[in-house]
């Protein structure tokens, strides 16, 4: 019983120290990745997360910016771009191969003006009231 309480209190206090652990071994980068929708977001984030050493991947549908937190000792920026390309998305440095791009879902075809328009029309942009 006492052990259990000790465990509970330990875990309780973890949260406060957790995020302070960020040290020199961890780097953060942000670069542009092309895409149009929430589905693209999942695809891009999942692909980057699967790369070794990546801690966090967050892509913003509005700004097209991908934020990655990673260990430089395990993965470098070029590899991050490659990981994005591998699932059919272009980055600011490197375009995805056409064959791969063709495999992603039709509604995610971000190189197609018609698709972009469709997302714009039904999408955001009614901000600021």
């Amino acid at each position, binding site marked *: *019983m006492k052990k*259990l*309480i000790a*465990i*509970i209190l330990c*875990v*309780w206090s*973890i*949260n406060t120290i*957790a*995020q302070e*652990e960020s040290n020199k071994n961890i780097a953060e980068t942000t670069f542009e990745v092309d895409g149009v*929708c*929430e*589905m693209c977001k*999942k695809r891009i*984030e*999942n*692909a980057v*997360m*699967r790369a070794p050493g*990546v*801690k*966090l991947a967050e892509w913003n*549908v*509005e700004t097209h910016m991908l934020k990655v*937190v990673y260990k430089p000792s395990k993965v470098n920026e070029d590899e991050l771009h490659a990981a994005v390309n591998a*699932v*059919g998305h272009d980055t600011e440095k490197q375009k995805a191969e056409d064959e*791969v791009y063709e*495999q*992603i*879902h*039709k*509604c995610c075809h971000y190189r197609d003006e018609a*698709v972009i328009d*469709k*997302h714009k*029309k*039904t*999408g*955001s942009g*009614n*901000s*600021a*009231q």
Partner: protein
Amino acid sequence: MLKKIIGLLLLQGLSLALWSQESVSGVVISEDKKGRFNPIPYANVYWMDSNYGTTTDSNGVFNLAIPDNARFLIASFVGYSSDTLEVRNFSKTLTLKLGITVELSAVEIEARRKSTEMSFMNPINSENISQRELFKAACCNLSESFETNPSVDVNFTDAISGNRQIRMLGLDGPYTLISRENMPGIRGLGNAFGLTFIPGVWVESIQLTKGIGSVVNGYESIAGQINFELKKPEVKEETFVNLYANQGGRMEVNFIKNQKVNEKWSTALLLHGNMRPFERDMNSDGFRDFPLQEQINVMNRWKYDNGKGLMAQIGFHYVNDEKEGGETDQREDELSELGRNALYRLKINTEKAEVFTKTGIVFPSYKYRSMGLQMSASFIDQESFYGLRDYDAREETFYANYIYQSIIGSSFHKFKAGMSFLYDDFDERLDDLEFNRTERVPGAFFEYTFEPSANFTLVAGARWDEHNIYGGFFTPRIHLRYASDEYTVFRLLAGSGQRTANVIAERQSLLASSRSYQFLGQNADYPFGIPMERAWNYGFNVLRNFTIDYRDGYVSLDLYRTEFENQLVADRDESSSEVLFYNLEGESYANNLQFELSYELIKFLEMRAAYRFTEVRTEYRSGLRQKPFTPKHRWFVNLAYSTAKSLKGANWTFDLTTQWFGEQRIPTTANNPVEYQRGEMSPSFFTFNAQVTRNFNDRWSLYAGMENIMNYRQDDPIISSENPFGNNFDASMIWGPIFGRMVYGGLRMTLGKAEM
């Protein structure tokens, strides 16, 4: 000691309550093709560049705290393009409009979401078990859907019928209200085998609530509520096929077809068949480990939505289930050696039919106002024998529930009010004894929800029911939720529940013994001389989400206490040759502590670990004792890992569950001859289950698994198995697995997913 912890936690909660926060509220909507605005429930709403976020409620409404740097508010929802709004006036009610992305219906989005989620916003302590979690244990029906869940126990009731029962908070299944889409799902006679009438693959998700639930769903829940949602016709048009087979000889086929008929109508056809044509006797005791069985199960439902606020559905469910267990065919040749001329057999034939309807009206101009009417009519018919004992029962039920919900002044004050009616006709016959009862219970309820901010919710409900046999009774219930910060939530609950005990039907495993039945109920006005069971339930829960090294997890602590005022006691401790049924003559309570830790240990390896302490004590004739076959201590660890998905959706998933069960008390066998005596306590034991799934693409996958990998078995589970017609025979003394290691496999296939 416990009191100290609670005090400490409450103190922490209170100290944080002192700083209050301003909040902003609004609604998330989307415009459909015809230009109508529909609210989007469960959409995400969050401040840009901050940790502050929430989800909208079922009406698309949200209420969110305002952090210092608040400026841009973002709303997003899977399948919609998100909206960003610059907020200048924080006191104004905001409207966020989501866009519909093209070809939404054909798209499945793979979110990095946990397969089981603890609710943060819900004032009632509940967890949502998604289909991904249900796939972790592939077999077979609702009774087995909880294999990977630490809050629900699943136990075999006896060594012959193959039946399993669930338990919550250490209390037997009937104390948990089981509902299908918030209508009565499994109750009354259905409590005996009803769980096996809901095939696992029909189930879309399960919401698990500990302790008393909402008064809207009736007065019956005491230990908890399990609500299961079936695959919905309107969500996705698809055809789904599932095949399954296991080493125990069980084979299953499932077929589901969801179809959109036109703009307004959609329909779902769900079919299930299973059979076990071969007998198995792994422990060589001359008895089939599982009965031979056959089941046909059909459900069809139609949904209507006119897009202007009227929704309706009608459906039916039919099940025919036949089981034949007992001694093996092989024993027939040995009968002369055993000195008898008949085999001990068990046969249970059950037929169930139900028709149900639901009608709902929402008022487009009053976004909080809606009303609904649910009705269902059903019968269950069971014909059975257990050796020389005959048991037949038939239950006819009609249920209606009308719910009106609206707000008082502002959305801070919501309420639900309504009326219900239950008609229940129960006729049963045990050998020459007949028991009949007809219940008619009109009732009315009112539930008030006070939600002044996203951090605090109070739900206070009460209902009055006027029972034709047991008189009128009052059921008050209260739930409190307080989030002290965006990671931590505290919940408190208190309230009562009551139910009519189905004395024989709920304890059918006892029929698989030579025990004589002694009905000692005193009150001549009541069936079996026993009043309605009534209990008070108190609960405390704290949940804390955390992120360590960018990976999420949570810790949670539950404390529950259930105290019975009236309870049907089935006393097996006077003698091994009888079972006494009487109303509680002293105290009876269940104390529960559960500690849970969930974390993504390394990337994509998710762990869920739990420890539970359960003390269920009842005043038997022989004194206050722990309930039989209920371990005081239980550990649970589940590990799940998935590999990267290819562009086509191919990957592997692995799942491992291990559990440790502490000692369990065994009812007395002291008056048996020495060779038929058992210890007072069972040994503690481990079980391990594992499963591997290969997803080839989004449409089909193969899975294989092994249950009880260590091949742990309760030795000699049937007392006096060589002489089942003798005085010492008892197949109901079960504390552990009967069947050893078991291999199973199957496939899941989605065909012709049409683009809508």
